[in-house]
């Protein structure tokens, strides 16, 4: 297996979506190829960092404001439907 072939399977490998035979081949490639090992590890870390450090959280005050605005518009919409 060449590095290119490994890379093509990287996403499925990290998602645990490869069959046993292919996994064994990929593991073997990782065993001797330091570069692919680093790429695999740092890609995994990339995913974890974005997953664990949720950027763009909705602050509570803004959340309440948005919720009230949405519900008020829904209420208007509902009453305008009732009285055509």
């Amino acid at each position, binding site marked *: 297996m060449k590095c290119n072939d490994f890379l093509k399977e990287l*996403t499925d490998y990290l998602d645990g979506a490869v069959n046993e035979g292919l996994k064994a081949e990929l593991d073997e490639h990782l065993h001797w190829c330091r570069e692919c090992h*680093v*790429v695999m590890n740092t890609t995994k870390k*990339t995913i974890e960092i*974005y997953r664990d450090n949720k*950027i*763009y959280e909705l602050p509570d005050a803004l959340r309440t404001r948005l919720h009230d605005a949405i519900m008020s518009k*829904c209420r208007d919409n509902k009453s305008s439907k009732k009285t055509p």
Partner: protein
Amino acid sequence: METIQKKNEEGVTSEMALVLAAKKGDLDAFSQLVKRYDRNVFRIAQHITHNDEDAQDVVQDAFLKAYTNLEQFQGNSKFYTWLVRIAVNEALMRLRKRRTDRTVSLDEDVETEEGSMPREVADWSPNPEQMYGTSELGDILKKTIQGLPPGFRTVFVLRDVEQLSTEETAEMLGLSVPAVKSRLLRARLQLRERLSRYFKSNRGGDESQ
């Protein structure tokens, strides 16, 4: 509706029960749906638009659109899948408005080879997140993901941040499963490449860049 309220306190009201009640005009039920998903919709909208005002508008418009079109929701997919599809379209529309010089679509830049081949192969520090303070780390992560084409970052945020399945992501974006997988691979590799600049280990690493 009292029964809905009561059930929800116990955390057992199903999404479908809330949708059915909302369809019958129960605004409290719809309010529960908003509270259930507003954080996710905001996060997705922010990732796509990278603009605070736009993201807030997307949240409002997506929920309002869902409410007014609730009749058309047939229940073949999950309400959340349907809602995110609406939100993604709203977000892309706003992005297009801001970038009048170019079109924005999920297919943009898909043929680029950039980032398909890793160039940076220096290992990272053992705990890269600890190299920076929380707000500095947040800035790095935002700046890095902003550099990806919209189609790539949309797939990345749905699959890897919101942790939806490939199939769900494909359904939300109207893409095929192989298309989602190919965008996800490129998004992951490009983010990795760009983050290496900040996280690579200084000891024994290649400092030539």
